């Protein structure tokens, strides 16, 4: 046998480029997989639309929010709810890859380590973008109007997507720890339920009992919903947006570090 050529370690810049390509390849695979799993598509797209229609028409009549039509109050809440439940999908997808052994195979490839998690969260960001776009359309059809015009709405949706991205990283950590999609789903749903329904997503936190207000007013989903409302409905937005951005950045930083560490520890 002739001597074996060992690939040389590429320079930093080309390594970053290669890592980006790897991330894009993994993201492309995840998107394709989702498109080919009809249940996942239904869960991602149809369910949020049903929620919009349900709250708008079935519950909306009984909920009175002073000074604002309920559909305008509802939409920021339902954006937040949708991306939070969508983030569970990150955990479910990753845990399925752990279980199938795909993650072990990927660890033996000369690809960038970060691409496994980066590609998964990027694909989920793309999915969230599509879902939020569809929901916005449905919202408008159901009577949703933005007092602050397109700029306010786009800023709010940008915030929603950034939050969704951070939440995906947080749930990536869960997915890596639980090598079973059903378990990941079961662990994720109660957390999201609590965060969404104690927030002001559907009803004002001020209408809740005092002890619950204390919880509801100081958690990330509530901060996101408040910031969205300020941007979409008008009023002083700076403080709410700042709080939401701080939560998002904090979650993103903590979750990327945590997920990357769990992923690295999987080879111990």
């Amino acid at each position, binding site marked *: *046998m002739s*001597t*074996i050529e*060992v*690939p040389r*370690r590429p320079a930093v810049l080309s390594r970053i480029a*290669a890592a980006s*390509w*790897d991330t894009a*390849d*993994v993201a492309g*695979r995840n998107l*394709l*997989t989702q498109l*080919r*799993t009809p249940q996942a598509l239904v869960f991602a797209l149809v369910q949020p639309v049903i929620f919009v229609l349900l709250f708008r028409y079935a519950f909306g009549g009984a909920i009175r929010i002073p000074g604002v039509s309920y559909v305008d109050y509802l939409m920021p809440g339902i954006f937040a709810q949708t991306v939070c439940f969508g983030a569970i999908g990150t955990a479910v997808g990753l845990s399925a890859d752990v279980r*199938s*052994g*795909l993650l*072990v*195979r*990927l*660890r*033996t*490839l*000369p*690809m960038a380590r970060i*691409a496994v998690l980066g590609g998964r969260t990027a694909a989920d960001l793309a999915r969230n973008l599509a879902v939020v776009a569809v929901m916005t359309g449905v919202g408008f059809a159901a009577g949703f109007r933005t007092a602050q015009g397109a700029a306010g709405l786009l800023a709010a949706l940008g915030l929603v997507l950034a939050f969704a991205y951070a939440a995906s990283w947080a749930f990536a950590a869960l997915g890596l720890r639980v090598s079973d999609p059903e378990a990941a789903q079961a662990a994720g749903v109660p957390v999201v339920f609590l965060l969404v329904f104690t927030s002001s997503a559907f009803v004002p936190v001020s209408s809740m009992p005092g002890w619950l207000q204390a919880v509801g007013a100081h958690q990330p989903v509530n901060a996101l919903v408040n910031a969205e409302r300020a941007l979409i409905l008008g009023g002083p937005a700076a403080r709410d947006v700042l709080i939401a951005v701080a939560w998002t950045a904090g979650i993103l930083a903590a979750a990327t570090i945590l997920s990357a560490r769990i992923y690295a520890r999987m*080879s*111990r």
Partner: protein
Amino acid sequence: MNGPAIAAEGLRKAFGQVTALDGLSFQVLAGSVLGLLGPNGSGKTTTVSILSTALRPDAGRATVCGRDVVADAAAVRGLIGFAGQFAAVDPNLTGRENLTLIGRLSRVDRKQARARADELLDSFGLSTAAGRLVRTYSGGMRRRLDVAAALLHRPPVLFLDEPTTGLDPESRLGLWESVRDLAHSGTTVLLTTQYLDEADALADEIVIIDSGRVADVGTPAELKSRFGSVVFDLGFAADADAEAAARVLTAGGYRPERAGAGIKVRSGSGSGAITQVLRALEGRAPDPVSVAVHEPTLDDVFLTLTQGGKAA
């Protein structure tokens, strides 16, 4: 031949209280096929995981083509192909898409990855299924695709972890053929298996491991002659017939083990010795009603190894 393509020295690995590897050392010559043979839980998968950089050892070191699997893992990954115990292919991608993806992630450029994918689909008999989603594949097809995926970047060293477990006999033979082709083309192959016949058919050398340690090393022929005793099972119509036959065999220098109407006779000189056994009985004892010949099995080898003795 150059030096070893794979070298493991004193590998140790524990998962909590469970010791998976307890100082494992062995070498694989470049261009050869090594069979890592052992029962469930003996440490085969842990060994392959460490050598393919998916897992870090607690102690000891290992190299692939001279590169350390921990310190120089990135370089090692460019040199190896790995197909794990579970066909790690995406059921929602087609066969071709799976291969192209793994090819891209193995740093083969897009055009080459496509060409190589088609080449491999062809040589693994998956051309007609290339455009179908993998969730419609049979177990054997998935497994072949999984092995093909390990070969996208033409690695000089290939790891296969129980490649034929759960396959039907035809798929099994097909996979054996593929491994032989790879070996002929100069690829170094390390495969784990629970089946002696598989190691026998494919491996130039066999390392038997038990409880995370090397129990023995040798070529298939060496190991079989050392541990393998062919067992003849003779069945008789009645216990008394078997008793009579056992007496005749004992007188003839054999060591029959009788249980009811059955007799076991071990032979150290291959299955051909059945002729002599039957001849010894002829006319002196009732004829057996059934005769079965059992070739040496991994069970024999392990029983012998764990009992510390060596068969005749």
